Every structure is written in structure tokens, then in C-alpha cells.
């Protein structure tokens, strides 16, 4: 889950995860995001969260996710505070839970949390009364990015029912991929993952997921291809011998995209390592949806914030 009903720690609803969200819930969020996108373009969006205070607690660096949450909250009329947790009392020995409880006492009603440890948003949700929106936890989940990707794909392809979506790269260590696996399957897509063996390990035999170990097989007939960011520090720690070796086998380029369905679009959650995951021609070419993904960031997060606060 979770767009969760209250469970003893307050009255908040949360978005902790993509798994467990129903197809209808996802579609409602995507529809609402479309509405937000239109309204924002027309400058007719309403201040649904006018007297709310949203805190941004990013224990890991982020630019685009943090900024899009900030803009989304402000667009809805909320007071948005970047709590700067990465540098403040965290370094003074205060525990994670104590910090969150302090923030709650200052009047934050919804906390957007990014953390390097998988599951941290669950701990936040059970230890405080704030509504928690997961903005990425460890290798576990990045629900709003998955919703952004789902909306972007829906814009390009229409319904995802029966479509084949290829995810290429370091799936095993990617919270973006993990959340996309849930949302795409829930929306009826077939998901194929491809990458070096260590990066697709653990998904063989999972319902609705095909595993490919050659890029030709991964892309074969795919209706869209999403390639994931290579975490440079992870590449150094193992899994692949070198970035050069990775690019040689797995970089998306125009000839390789011939394996995919004609005109199949390319996505990347960003930021890209130019020339590693895909060629810059492809990233900046007509098949690329990367810019659309960024554009959808704010309206999707507006939809999430409004839904979690039961304001929409």
C-alpha cells in the first residue's frame, strides 16, 4: 500500500508505496494529475491545501523531486518548508524518530520524506501522526516517480493494458524500477526487465515480469523503453566491471531501438549520465519522453498531496 486509512497513529493518510494501491486508485490519481496539469496551465488551480503546512525532509540529496514537491504544495496554497534535515539536528545525535516528532510539534501536517534506508517512511508513519508521502526510500520505492512515469506513458500510448514495457539497467537496486514494476503491472502492462545478471537478480519467477539478459531480448517488440540511472558508486562497488562495459552491452541507441516496436518512446527518470544509459541523440530526439516526465512531476505531486490530505 498505501493510501491508507488511519491505523492508530493519527488520522493521516499516507502514500508509502505503490504496491497495494489498486488500479482504480492509480487511475484516479492519474486523472486528477491531468486535471491539475490543465488547471495549472490555465492558471485556474485552486488552493486546496490553503491552511496546511507541508514539510520536506530530504535525508538524501535531490533536486527535481524536492523542487516539484515544493512547487506542487505551493500551487495548492500550502505553506511548504524545506526542513533541511540533512544538515541540522540529525548531525547532533537526535534520532530520526525524535526529529520527526519535533517537526510534527511545529505544526507540519504532511511530511514529504526521502531517506536512504528502505522502509523509513513506514517507521515515520507509525511513529508520528503526520501524513507521510514517500519521496524515495533506499532501494524500496519511489511512488510519485512511478505515477509520473505512468502518466507520461499514458499520454504517449493511451491505456497500458496489454502493452509491453521494457525496463533496462540496474533494476535490482532501483526504487524507481521497483515502484514501476507495481504500477505498470497493476495497469495491465507486461513488464520486461533487462540488465547485467546482478542487476536483474531476484525477479525471476515473479508474476508478470519477464527477465532478459541481452538487450535484444529486453527490447524485442517493446511498446516503450525505460532505462534507469546507473548509480556510479554502485557500479564501482560491483555488478559490472566498468561503465564502458555496461554501455557496450546496454546503452540505448537508435540501432538498438530498432528491436522495439516502431516509434516506441524512451523514458529515463533522470538525471541521466550522458552517453552511459542512452545516447544524447536518443535522449534529446523525438522518441524521448524525458522532458515530459519532468513536466508531469508537479501535477502528479499536486494530485498526490491533495489526495493524501483528502482535499480532492
Amino acid at each position: 500500500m498505501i493510501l491508507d486509512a488511519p491505523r492508530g497513529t493519527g488520522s493521516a493518510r499516507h502514500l508509502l508505496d505503490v504496491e497495494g494501491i489498486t488500479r482504480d486508485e492509480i487511475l484516479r490519481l492519474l486523472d486528477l494529475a491531468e486535471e491539475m496539469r490543465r488547471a495549472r496551465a490555465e492558471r485556474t488551480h485552486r488552493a486546496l491545501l490553503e491552511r496546511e503546512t507541508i514539510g520536506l525532509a530530504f535525508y538524501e540529496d535531490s533536486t527535481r523531486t524536492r523542487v516539484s514537491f515544493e512547487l506542487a504544495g505551493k500551487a495548492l496554497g500550502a505553506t511548504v518548508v524545506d526542513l533541511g534535515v540533512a544538515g541540522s539536528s540529525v548531525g547532533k545525535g537526535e534520532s530520526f524518530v525524535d526529529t520527526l516528532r519535533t517537526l510534527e510539534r511545529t505544526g507540519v501536517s504532511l511530511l514529504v520524506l526521502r531517506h536512504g534506508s528502505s522502509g523509513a517512511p513506514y517507521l515515520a508513519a507509525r511513529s508520528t501522526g503526520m501524513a507521510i508521502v514517500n519521496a524515495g526510500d533506499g532501494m524500496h520505492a519511489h511512488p510519485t516517480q512511478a505515477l509520473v512515469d505512468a502518466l507520461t506513458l499514458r499520454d504517449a500510448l493511451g491505456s497500458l493494458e496489454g502493452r509491453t514495457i521494457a525496463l533496462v539497467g540496474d533494476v535490482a537496486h532501483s526504487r524507481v524500477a521497483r515502484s514501476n514494476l507495481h504500477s505498470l503491472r497493476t495497469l495491465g502492462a507486461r513488464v520486461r526487465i533487462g540488465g547485467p545478471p546482478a542487476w536483474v537478480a531476484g525477479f525471476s519467477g515473479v508474476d508478470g515480469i519477464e527477465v532478459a539478459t541481452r538487450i535484444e531480448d529486453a527490447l524485442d517488440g517493446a511498446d516503450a523503453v525505460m532505462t534507469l540511472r546507473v548509480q556510479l558508486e554502485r557500479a564501482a562497488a560491483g555488478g559490472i566491471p566498468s561503465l564502458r562495459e555496461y554501455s557496450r552491452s546496454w546503452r540505448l541507441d537508435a540501432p538498438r531501438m530498432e528491436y522495439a516496436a516502431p516509434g516506441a518512446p524512451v523514458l529515463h527518470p533522470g538525471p541521466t549520465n550522458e552517453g552511459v544509459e542512452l545516447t544524447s541523440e536518443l535522449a534529446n530526439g523525438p522518441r524521448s519522453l524525458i522532458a515530459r516526465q519532468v513536466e508531469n512531476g508537479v501535477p502528479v505531486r499536486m494530485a498526490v498531496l491533495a489526495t493524501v490530505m483528502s482535499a480532492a
Partner: protein
Amino acid sequence: MTLGRFGRLTDPPASFLVTDVRVIDPNDGSDAVRDLAVIDGFLADPGNASDRIERIDGRGLVAAPGFCDLHTHLREPGDDVSETIACGARAAARGGFTTICAMPNTEPPLDEPARLAWVIDRARDASCRVRVIGTVTVGRRGEALADLAAMADAGAVGFSDDGAAIPSSRLTRSALTYLRGVGRPLIEHAEDGQLADGSEMRAGPTASRLGLRGWAPSAELTVVERDIALAEETGGRLHVTHLSTAAALEAIRRARSRGLPVTCDVTPHHLAMTDAWVAGSRRFAWQEPDDEVSLDVDHAFDGLCRVNPPLPSRADALALLSGLADGTIDAIATDHAPHPAERKLVPFGEASPGMIGLETALGIGLAAVEAGCLDLARLIAALSIRPAEIISERRSLAIGQPADLVVFDPAARGPVTSDQLASASSNTPLLGVELPGMVRLTVANGRITYRS
């Protein structure tokens, strides 16, 4: 439910008569309802019990040799917030244990005779006998052998760098060779530190689902295979503690079928809990698993389920259970690892590994017995005489012996709650889970150390 009353090893010897109690003595395989008399701390002929001594109605209760835990963390010296020798010993008594073996990964580590003597001295008036395990290497640093013979003379019943394996094969070989002369076992925490580095839970579908870094069974197997080869070559005595994988169990089974005297233990949590507990399941390994546990806010990613070695796959837990049932696994050892709440109320991967176990070991074992996975006599042997034998001690229910026994009610049941726990910590995911079995009486060396 009340906590009961604790006694100490320094109390006067007890006299009492338990009537109509089911006495299970794995020493001779006997299992019969009879009277059990203790006079001045010694087992006696019930016919000689005078009318003046206390009579305890034993109907429905089971009496067995006192339990022996090969693997307890008492945290002293260095961390008396998590646990103390006194509290840990009371937790042991409440769990039916009359002997516990303190692991040496304290601060400072128990790596020289004076430090062992300090623990032994502090435990003199505890509620349970405390035996001490010494470190294998100086400072537990894995570089050079500690003074093993001197520590053995000071009371060390075995040697372990628990918390980590002996890192180098060469040093392990030296330790096993040298310990032949000392006559004590090497108690190995079998885990390849490089393979396990950075892992958060057992590798498998749940780890993949949760995005937690996986611990692969090869981390245990490679060290177990290495140690078996070295034990065979040197003739040193190897005991593998907290076995957690079917693969390593098979390696031990093969070694024993060749006649090697390799022994091993398993914790109650590796028998009963599975990696699905990290996702929030609270079903025991022998129960039908949940289809797919939905991640709920209260239980998913609970740091209380972080333990090392990590909770096993269900298949491995069931394999361990059958290894215990068939005797390949000699003993149940708790790896009682207390931590204060603040070291557990953190994101999962940051939680200190370990859970307490002294007060729930019998309950978990009885739950396995109720499920038909284990027979009661085997459970009792694995908790009492087998672990005692591994540290060269004997347990007897024969007349004339010092009374060292436990009397428990196998049918009483209730949820585990933190206010009942005698341990200074309450870090166990069993809180709120119902377990069978309640200890009524623990008698160590003729003294009543616990009674409820």
C-alpha cells in the same frame, strides 16, 4: 500475568515435593508421571520426603532437566543499558534455564582471564549459573590468538569471536589445532564478512520486494565448509552456532556422517520466524504462509526483525526444524541479544541486529511441538542435556544429584508482553504474539531461582 518470584544461587537449598508431575528425562529416555522430591537441594526418594516440606501439585505439569543456553549476550561489561548480568540471569531463570553461557563480544571483550573472572564473580549471586565463553582472538580483532589455555583455566567453557567469524582460514586452523590441547570447542559464528557486508535481511523474494540488501546463504556455507575441512584436518572441536540455512545444515550432516564430532545449534527465531516477518507477517514457519503479506504501517520494516544471521526463508526454517528433530542439530541456543528501544526504533537497515530469546525459547519450542514438528522429549534434550554436554556438563534427574530442573505448564498460554519480561530489554517481534508454556519452577543447583 505476574512476573513470578526470583531466587538466587546463594539462597539456602530448597526442599519440596512435586506430586503427579510428568517427568521427562532425556538421559534415559524416561517419560512418566510420578512424584519428584528435592530435599536440601538434592533429588531424593519421594518416599523419604517428610510431611513438613512443601507439596506442589504437579498435575498437568512437566518436569525436565534445567535448560542450558550456549549463546547469551549479557552485555556486561560495557553496556548495562541493554542488559545486566543480574537481569539476564533472571530472564534465564524465568525461561527455565539454569545455565547460560555469556558471549564475549562485550566492551571490552572477554579476551583475558581477569575479564572472565570479573563476570564470573559478578554472577555469583545471580538467578542462573553463568558460564563464560572467551574470545578466540585478542580484542576479538581476528588477528592473533588470545591466551586460550589461561582463559580455560579461568573458566572459559568454549571460545568464540561471535558477532563475526574468525576472518582468516589460517587463524581458524591455528585455533582449532591449539584448542585440541585445551579441550574446549571453537564456537563459530559462521559468516563470511565480505559476502555479508552491507546486507540487511536474507536474500530472496521478500528482500527483492522490500528493496533491502540481501544476505546470501553462501555467506554461512563457505565458512561452515571451511571450518569443517579445518576441523577434520586438525582434530579440533568445532561447534557452529546459530545455524540459519539448509545448505550449511547439509554440510554439517555430511561431516557428521563421516564421523566428525562437529556440533551445532539453532536459535528459536531461526526455527519459527521467516524473512516474511520483515514484511510484517507474524505466522510461524510451520503455519501456512500468508499469500502475500500486504505491507502494513504497523509491522512492515520493523527493526525488531533485524537479526544476524537474518531470519531465514520458510524452506530453510523448516529444514532447520527437521534437522533439530532428527538430531543433526544438537541444541537450541537463544542468541539472546538485548538492545534498548532507541537502537531498534530506527529505519530497518540501521537497527542493531538481534533479539532477546531466553524468555520465549521454551514457548517457541512448545509451539513447534503443538504443530507436530518436534517431539517434546527432543525439544527438552535440545534445551538441556545436549547443550550441557557440548560444554562438558551433565544434567541428571537421578536421586542423589543436586536438583537442577525446570517445571513448566505446557498448556498455559498467553501473549508475550514487555511488562512480563525480566530482561532489561524487550526487543522481540513476538510482543503481542501468543505462545504456549509457562515456567512454574526453576531450580538451579538445588536453589529455587524462579517460581510463578
